[in-house]
């Protein structure tokens, strides 16, 4: 974790802690990037920029547009253009408005996708605890996607995408995080290739218990495992028969029918064997009878 943020720290030291806490939100200014893009340096730009402490005036140009977060009133702390956090831990990382992936000539479509997250979306998937409202989204290659992540629970959830090109996205990640009930938004540009990207919440046991989905770009790549209702689990539990008390058990506890039924119910394996034995007996009698004449004939031959 510490390492994870140490690079960002360099940036934040330069910018200063609360510089933007009270500043009004400015429209996005991408002039710096556009210039670099025209130079054809956008490929390396991402990494270089993130490693170096950005000059403060550069950073000033990159405040978040008003429409992209629902909790602007109290302002944001800016680590750098790539990592924005508010005072309650709402976080946008790896946002990209304008850096075109090398595999794209232009942006193919500009779309907005709303993702809801919470315990209630897990209800339709027995054996899970948390989920997104959708388990798969489809966009065109080179699409510019604005994600509106609505966390309906009263705890933290994340919308974390992995496998993005590292020259544009630090650690190959795009990450929205917010404590609900609240919304946070962020924009990215998908690469041009057909690919399927992992989307999950990294809070311990959230992905493992349902908060897993995939973003299919174009025709997509291989499906990811263990997505609730969508793809088979890589590892699954063994579910054994559970003998729970039934209402019918209570009504006529003393009747003979009940006791007979109990005999069969009490041990499914035994009752199964009983039937198996019965069938075997019934079927084998004629078989033995058929065999007898053969033996006799054999005896006759001798």
């Amino acid at each position, binding site marked *: 974790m*510490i390492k994870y943020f140490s690079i960002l720290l360099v940036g934040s030291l330069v910018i200063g*802690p609360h510089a933007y806490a009270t500043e009004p939100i400015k429209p996005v200014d991408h002039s710096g990037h556009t210039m670099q893009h025209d130079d054809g340096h956008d490929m390396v730009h991402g990494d270089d920029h993130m490693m170096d402490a950005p000059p403060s005036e550069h950073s000033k140009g990159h405040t978040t547009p008003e429409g992209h977060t629902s909790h602007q009133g109290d302002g944001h702390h800016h680590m750098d253009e790539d990592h924005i956090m508010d005072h309650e831990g709402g*976080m946008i990382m790896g946002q990209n408005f304008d850096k075109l992936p090398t595999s794209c000539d232009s942006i193919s479509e500009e779309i907005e996708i709303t993702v809801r997250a919470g*315990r209630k979306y897990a209800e339709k998937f*027995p054996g899970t*605890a948390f989920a997104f409202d959708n388990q798969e989204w489809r966009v065109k290659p080179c699409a510019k996607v604005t994600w509106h992540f609505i966390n309906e629970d*009263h705890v933290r959830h994340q919308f974390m995408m992995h496998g993005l090109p590292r020259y544009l996205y630090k650690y190959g990640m795009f990450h929205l*995080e917010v404590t609900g009930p609240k919304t946070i938004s962020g924009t990215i540009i998908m690469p041009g290739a057909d690919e399927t990207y992992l989307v999950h919440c990294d*809070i*311990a046991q959230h992905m493992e218990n349902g908060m897993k989905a995939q973003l299919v770009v174009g025709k997509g790549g291989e499906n990811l495992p263990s997505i609730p209702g969508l793809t088979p689990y890589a590892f699954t539990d063994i579910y054994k028969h559970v003998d729970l008390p039934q209402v019918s058990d209570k009504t006529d506890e003393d009747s003979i029918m009940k006791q007979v039924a109990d005999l069969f119910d009490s041990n499914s394996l035994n009752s199964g064997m009983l039937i198996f034995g019965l069938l075997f007996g019934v079927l084998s009698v004629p078989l033995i009878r058929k065999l007898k004449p053969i033996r006799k004939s054999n005896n006759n031959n001798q």
Partner: protein
Amino acid sequence: MPIHFLIAILSFCCMSTAVIAQTAKLPETVKVDPAALNIEPICDPKIAASWREAQEIEGVKIKESRLCNPDNPAWIAAAVKGTNNISMATLMQTGLSPDAIIKTDDLDGDGDPDRITIKLEIMELNGSSRDFDGLVPTFDIAPGIQPGAWVFAPKTSGMSTENFESVRANPLLRLPSPVIRVEVGDIVQIVLENTHYFPHSIHLHGVDHPFSHHEYGGNDGVPQTNEMHLMPGERRVYEFQPRHAGTMFYHCHVQTHTHLAMGLGGIIIVEENRPNNWLQTLNIGGGQVRHPSVAIKEDFDQEYDLHYHAMDKELTGIIQKYNDPRLIAHEMNQRYDITDSTEDYFTLNGLSFPYTLRESLITVEPDQKIKLRVLNSGGELLALHTHGHHATITHYDGVEHNPIAQIMRDVFDLAPAQRLDLTLNTTNDGLHSYGEGNWLFHDHREKGITTDGMSEGGSMSAIVYKSYLTEIGLPKGSHGVDLNTYFSKEFYQRKVPVWQDLDKAGTLGTPAGQTGMTAGIDPATRTSLLNFLYGLLLGISIYLLIAKRQLAKQAVLRVVSLLKGSKGSIKND
């Protein structure tokens, strides 16, 4: 053909018997080559040496820590000032959420904040995954020992693991649940955000709190008497304004017999009210308090939080065996029987020996007065023994013992949930202290110094005088045992002969196994194998006897006649 087969089996049997019968020389001692072990560095290489120094961050004075793995000083600064009163640069070094610790309003005008909000999440450590055959996020209590656990964790920001490539837990997510410090008169809100897949609660054992809060309702954490379960994804505020100081205990009160043992319990300390008393609200990982309260500084040179815990591997293994929360609930609530349980792992501040050496040593100098706050959150009585020292019991369960009746002991018994405040005096007078040294302190129930029965392990640690501490914060062993072996998972997998290096000859090492065809087979298997061969031999002989009875008859007759012939010849002589 059967004759050849028979001969082959016969000769094999003879060889095997010969190996057993040969007793002229016993096998040589074999040793484990240290190079064959996965030995971890004794100190975590990721921890910066500068963390050990006395320093000031955000105006917060942080005492020196001589330990090999000291706390992150940024954690301490954030805990003292509050995450709302520090720079983003410092906050980023903590990994805490910006709203993890909020400190505002000096209500009594004495120079310190009196409205304290502490946000806690519930995190699972060493749990199973439906995606891969392994545990995540991992937290080792000792080399290779990863019991499934649940902890209250300070509210974090970002991932649960170190990074996307690693399965190791974010350093804020660890055993034990953090030590909480508040001041008498503070309006404290503990906000529990249930990020876990089970219902939980917080019960403030010993802390002055109203049974029910006028705004937030149930405040005692007990589902059967006071409040509903806090379900996954929900948040609850526990508000209180403590009037009495002392060392207390907070824990989950939902299915307490399993949830507490899983790790959902920690120390909570109410400190006396003093002016300008900026407390270290969280002591993550417990141990040395590097920013003690004003009252403690008045009377003591140092302060340590010591949280003892114990876990049953049958219980901790449930979350590693099952994924489905319904199956875990079934196993824990209906199948697991605590009355048949045994505790296997014994920890001090979340770790077992040798990791206790990294961060739970009590480092002292002569003529010091040291405050020890001890909690036993295990299921059995604890018998803590301090080598070389008699300490004084000043408080039981957060209540001061009559000063003239306070007693000195060298074994301290703590019932489950009990807290003791001890004063350790390092004056070399033959009673308080026997002098400088590297003195062990450990649970004297001997299983307490084992890890799943393997010694040395458990909650064992040491009181180490400065003169016995190495540059990197490890105790100088005067007996010369190489500590490295303990830092290998193979040791706790019972693969290393404990006494192999006591002398050059390895007289108490492990003997080599038998050589030859039966090498590597244990005696029991070898016996049954031999029995099987004898049986086979017998069977074949009987078969041959019946099948070739004509031949056998002839052979017998021939032998008989031969004998008769010889007899005859003798007679004839």
